[in-house]
């Protein structure tokens, strides 16, 4: 995925009614978004699409004996 530009980030923020305070704010937000997107895009695992993204775990342990 390509990096988003400052203008694209600003446009997306404005669509959400979010407003950076200044150019430094926008620059750092842009760096953060591009870094996160790049890092997530790089995640690879052959089983990733087989995993269901459940949120709550403890129910599966409810019947186990505590150690």
């Amino acid at each position, binding site marked *: 995925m390509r*990096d988003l530009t400052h203008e694209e*980030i600003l446009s*997306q*923020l404005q669509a*959400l*009614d*979010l*407003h*950076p*305070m200044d150019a430094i*704010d926008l*620059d*750092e*937000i842009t*760096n*953060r*978004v*591009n*870094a*996160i*997107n*790049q*890092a*997530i895009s790089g*995640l690879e*695992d052959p*089983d*990733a*699409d087989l*995993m*269901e*993204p*459940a*949120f*709550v*775990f*403890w129910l599966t*342990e*409810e019947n*186990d004996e*505590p*150690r």
Partner: protein
Amino acid sequence: MSLDELTLQSAMDLSSMITKGDLSPVEITQAYLARIEKYSHLNAYITVDYEGAMNAARIAEKELSHGLIRSPIHGLPVAVKDQFHVKGMRTTLGGNIYDKISTKDATVVARLRDAGAIFLGKLNLSEYALGGNIEHPFGVPKNPWDITRQAGQSSSGSAVAVAASLCSAALGGDTAGSIRGPAAWCGIVGLRPTWGAVSRYGAFPMAWFMDTIGPMTKTVKDAAIFHYAIAGNDPKDIYTSKRTVLPFDHTLGLKGLRIGIVRESLDNGMASEHVIDAFNTAMDVFRDAGALVEDASLPLFEQGGLIANTLSDVEAAHTHRHWLREQPNDYDFATRRRLMAASLISGAMYTKLSRFRMLMRRDVMSALHQFDVIVTPAQAGGAPLIANETNLTSKEAVISQFFGLRSHRSPFNLSGVPAMAIPCGFTGDGMPVSIQIAGQPFAENLLFQFGLEFQNRTDWHLQRPDL
């Protein structure tokens, strides 16, 4: 021993003196209040309730003198992170936006109150328990081992207060490492319990499926007692487990138990030389205690920080969406930028991370079927200097600051299993270093078993900062 010197003792040592009638809850409460005043420059507290604490101490003293002992916590002065509601006390969440007098107790607070604890006040934190802010409205919490250094994120005030003996024990919150990180940097014990073991009712949320509340204490024995006091089902938090919470049995040893060292937490520059040395020495202690120590593997370990921090930031961005629109100026600049960035992470990315969270859970559970516990350093290095800027001037700077080295605690948040930081040494410049022990869901008592044996054989937990 003077009263001030007594504040340096563990909570259970104080408890023993109180229940024998050798120590007055009123006097020890006064001693802690005096220290809070004396060391206020550490910025550990946001609110100190002098009157309420003294009233509670007098009631505890009266009850104890009549032979009513509510629990081992009865008469102990404690404090909680200002993320949890305490009836009648101010709650700020460590930020500029929320400031209210609480009308109810969080469940963990109510349970400590029923157990006879005395509340000294509310502790400082990274704003809204997010971690990562630069400007702190109530002062930057300072590491008692070196006040030019950070105390960690976000239960920083809790760690400072325990390490500097400004309370006998504290409660913190841990979503992506916020109990164990500050505990490790400040040289105390910090337990992140199993997700669902402790009620979160009355606590301000960050990421509901990873938020936990746990004790921050001087010793493992203290952590076990405080965890027992706060854990268990609560109808006000539908995700709390209904299983019975058992008290910790101090008499068990480690002979024949299996420890798996997560290799990925040590290799490829994931920990400094001092951290690795202290960690290896700690493993020798476990071997001497009869445990079997072998290598384990969590292939996704280095990705833990990315997965946990991004998921929790996206959740937080949603929680904060109204304030972020209406009062962006009232956030610390780093928090504002972080939440706005998280607001732009796509649903597809979030789903991908959620699937990788399950892969991490699969790997952690697989390792925990092979070993009784798995261990890592609790941190990559000693506490860094207090920062004035984010310095995130490039994409690469963000990657290097926030992923990889930030991963030591995240795999266990993602997996929902309990994990505990225990002091195991110091860096060359005198900053504390800790190991981290993780176990199967609801195996807190097994973690205490390992931790207690370690502290019976070492004296790192007896070191106090020279204030």
